[in-house]
């Protein structure tokens, strides 16, 4: 187990990167605190897997250093880093039995047979494959194969970190939930540093203590699920997290108030912003009103998703979403929306700005 430090790290797949756009992973400084569970969240191609492969040593970064507990391992081979990693698509050794598959990393480390047997038995129970231990891995379903891949990662108890690269993509939905629970339990039992790459926000938010959101090769925000939800540091985070995502309104910022069109909106602090300024408001903080106050809006349609209703509105030609509690009535003559001030975030050129006098 170790603290993992990324120092000035960046990576390009091109031999001579010229501009910022050539970098698959843009410059990054970060400490992965020992024993925490992180989720690395972002859409496909945003550099998540690149970052993971650099940490595990499958890729050597084109610049910067990686330190494990302060020791430079930038060019150390994977084996020396003692890291477990599980990939998106199942990797099993076809010709081996399930048991040998699980024991493979331990055997490679030269562990004694009794200990291997104990651990394999334990992991087999975790992934619910005790009955299949003596089967050949070849004929198994994709699910089962991925469980073996996970098992091969979990069987190594003394690893510096456990990395998961979208491991549950091929797994059945009900099994997904169960395996995620097992992973969480594993984390609680052993306290490994875990980094879990996913593009599924539910997976990220339920698994991790801290979520790292990446966009276009850059880390845009690191925070707890609550922080990401309430204070998205970048419009992308607002868009990506939450369902539906955060609403954005073009607005002029003027101290404690903002203007959307010709409507004035109260803010919860004093802001000074330049550039392209926007207000970000999550659907949960939008209130419908019929009394002439707020921004003019027309209801387009209402979707009942069970736990709550999503109201799709037309505000100045843009589609805006509001979330209304299941029991609440929606007035037929709704023609305005208002915002809860604590739910408004102010953005300048897509980055969130804090009100004067605060640091968050």
């Amino acid at each position, binding site marked *: 187990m170790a603290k993992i430090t990324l120092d000035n790290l960046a990576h390009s797949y091109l031999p001579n990167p010229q501009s910022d756009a050539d970098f698959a992973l*843009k*410059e990054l400084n970060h400490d992965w605190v020992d024993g925490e569970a992180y989720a690395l969240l972002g859409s496909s191609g945003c550099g998540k897997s690149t970052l993971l492969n650099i940490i595990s040593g499958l890729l050597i970064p084109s610049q910067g250093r990686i330190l494990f507990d302060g020791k430079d391992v930038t*060019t150390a081979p994977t084996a020396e880093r003692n890291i477990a990693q599980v990939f998106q698509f199942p990797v099993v050794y076809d010709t081996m039995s399930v048991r040998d598959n699980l024991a493979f990393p331990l055997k490679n480390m030269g562990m004694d047979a009794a200990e291997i047997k104990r651990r394999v038995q334990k992991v087999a129970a975790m992934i619910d494959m005790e009955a299949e231990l003596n089967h050949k891995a070849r004929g198994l379903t994709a699910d089962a194969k991925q469980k073996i891949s996970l098992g091969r990662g979990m069987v190594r108890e003394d690893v510096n970190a456990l990395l998961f690269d979208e491991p549950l993509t091929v797994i059945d939905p009900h099994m997904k939930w169960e395996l995620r629970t097992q992973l969480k339990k594993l984390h609680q039992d052993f306290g490994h540093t875990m980094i879990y790459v996913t593009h599924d926000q539910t997976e990220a938010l339920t698994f991790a203590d801290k979520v790292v959101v990446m966009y*276009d090769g850059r880390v845009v925000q690191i925070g707890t699920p609550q922080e990401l939800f309430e204070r998205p540091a970048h419009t992308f985070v607002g868009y990506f997290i939450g369902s539906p995502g955060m609403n954005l309104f073009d607005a002029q910022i003027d101290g404690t108030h903002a203007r959307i069109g010709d409507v004035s909106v109260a803010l919860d602090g004093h802001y000074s912003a330049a550039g392209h300024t926007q207000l970000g408001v999550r659907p949960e903080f939008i209130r419908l009103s019929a009394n002439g106050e707020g921004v003019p809006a027309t209801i387009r349609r209402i979707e009942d998703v069970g736990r709550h209703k999503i109201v799709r509105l037309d505000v100045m030609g*843009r*589609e805006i979403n509001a979330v209304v509690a299941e029991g609440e009535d929606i007035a037929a003559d709704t023609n305005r929306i208002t915002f809860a001030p604590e739910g408004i975030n102010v953005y300048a050129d*897509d980055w969130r700005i804090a009100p004067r006098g605060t640091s968050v």
Partner: protein
Amino acid sequence: MSDRTLPENVTDTPEMTIHKPRVTSRRFRPSGSAVVMALYLLFLMLPIYWLINMSLKTNNEILGAFSLWPRNLTFENYATIMTDASWYMGYVNSMIYVVMNTAISLAVALPAAYAFSRYSFMGDKHLFFWLLTNRMAPPAVFALPFFQLYSSIGLFDTHIAVALAHCLFNVPLAVWILEGFMRGVPKEIDETAYIDGYSFPAFFIKIFTPLISSGIGVAAFFCFMFSWVELLLSRTLTSVDAKPIAATMTRTVGAAGVDWGVLAAAGVLTIVPGAVVIYFVRNYIAKGFALGRV
């Protein structure tokens, strides 16, 4: 979510300044693989180099002083071949029957391979193996019967005789290769085409054939290869008019001993067509050699 677009300008932000990349020096590892490959290619190329070397020497130089490269460079040997019809017609003959064979093999193998890859019918598995056994038939076994068969129907010393004879091993091979590629095409494509009203021939030519074009290329490559390199049957079935270049080469052994220079030049010229074909298919070789079975 119609007018919701991804924010675009995240790259130019004040917080994240762009540093000139400090490139980590990659460790240089001397590659054992390169050494292995160099040695292997050297092993492959040395005999060919020697043949080329000899083809550019006069007989006197060949039999005289031993030298690693031609001291008196001469194209005389090539000139001999290019100007003598009995020599260069050998190449023409070979090319004719090789092309004929490739065309015939593919034409009959395509429908058969389709049948094997899509349908099960009485005796299909035995038939498939029986076809393959013809690939296993030693040409030596067939040399004499072929000679008699083609003589009796008046095809002896014609190109078509050699082309048909080579079908013996090329048709099974083509069926086998094409069947492998066709298995990779999902059956739903056939069904969709039939629903869309295509007749079988129209579907086969317009839709299916383009889908397995790489397989057809590979099969053609192999047919070309095995027909081009075969000598026993092509020599047995021809005497003058359709005589292949490979057989013509035996002419160099005359009363005055072997004409080494011309022999070497003729040999070099037989390598050229193969080299040209390989150059054109170089990017498909690896995939092709897997015969659609990887």
